[in-house]
């Protein structure tokens, strides 16, 4: 097996994430789409580690870093969505066009 199909799969997943971020209206679904994009990057990192066999597994270690940062991002992101929902009674991103409350 070669690297090509795996990279195409990761590109497909990333593009679906981009579509989700652009086309979704609900704030939680946008965060879900961002997770898809981060997951595509993880697939790329692990696949390149498998293809290049770098010493000390650098690709896998960076995938672990990406997972950690993604967990932090979800924590902060959902807290912000929760706070906005509490103030505006809505999770619809089109309602948040102005930054000023």
């Amino acid at each position, binding site marked *: 097996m070669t690297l090509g199909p795996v990279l195409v799969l990761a590109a497909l997943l990333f593009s679906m994430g981009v579509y989700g971020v652009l086309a*979704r209206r*609900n704030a939680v679904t946008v965060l879900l789409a961002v997770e898809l994009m981060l997951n595509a990057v993880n697939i790329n990192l692990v696949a390149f580690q*498998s293809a290049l066999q770098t010493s000390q597994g650098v690709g896998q270690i960076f*995938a*672990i870093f990406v997972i950690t940062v*993604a967990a932090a991002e979800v924590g902060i992101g959902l807290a912000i969505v929760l706070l906005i929902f509490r103030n505006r009674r809505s999770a619809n991103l089109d309602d948040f066009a102005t930054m000023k409350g």
Partner: protein
Amino acid sequence: MMDFTEPVTWVASILGLVIALSGFLVVTSKNLIHAALGLVGALGATAGLFLVLSAEFVAWVLVLVYIGAVIVLFLFGIMITRAPVGYDVDLDNDRKLIAAIGAGSLFVLTSFAALDSFGDTPLLGLGEPTSTGDLADALLGRFVLPFEFVSFVLLAALVGGITVARKDATPLGEGTDE
């Protein structure tokens, strides 16, 4: 490009199909809970793909951290921000066509570039797990500074998240008897 006489190619193809279909469900489903469960499918199949790509430790980290913790957080977020769990016609905005064109051209561009430069690079050591001990040596040796930094980022982000989402704005100790 894909040699279907090897069983590993079949396994990887099925996992890739599951990832693609689940990802499609995440971005198109009209039901928020179904979208979150689609992400579970995509991440689970990704963990399987990581096992094939000999990244055993990363696969189980993905299962524990993502499917175990992040999805639960997402489900809580969905259930708090939506009282009636059901179909919601307002989930997508009216820029779907532009978004689809943009994402499609991005897919064509990136996959063409990737295939052009790395399409024929063989994957080595498929199915042979990377030693977790080696990863630990690298994490606490060469990468100890980024490791500690990322741990601190996670801690600060979660404490910040709790502070932002707290119901009462008064700091601890300043209110009545807390």
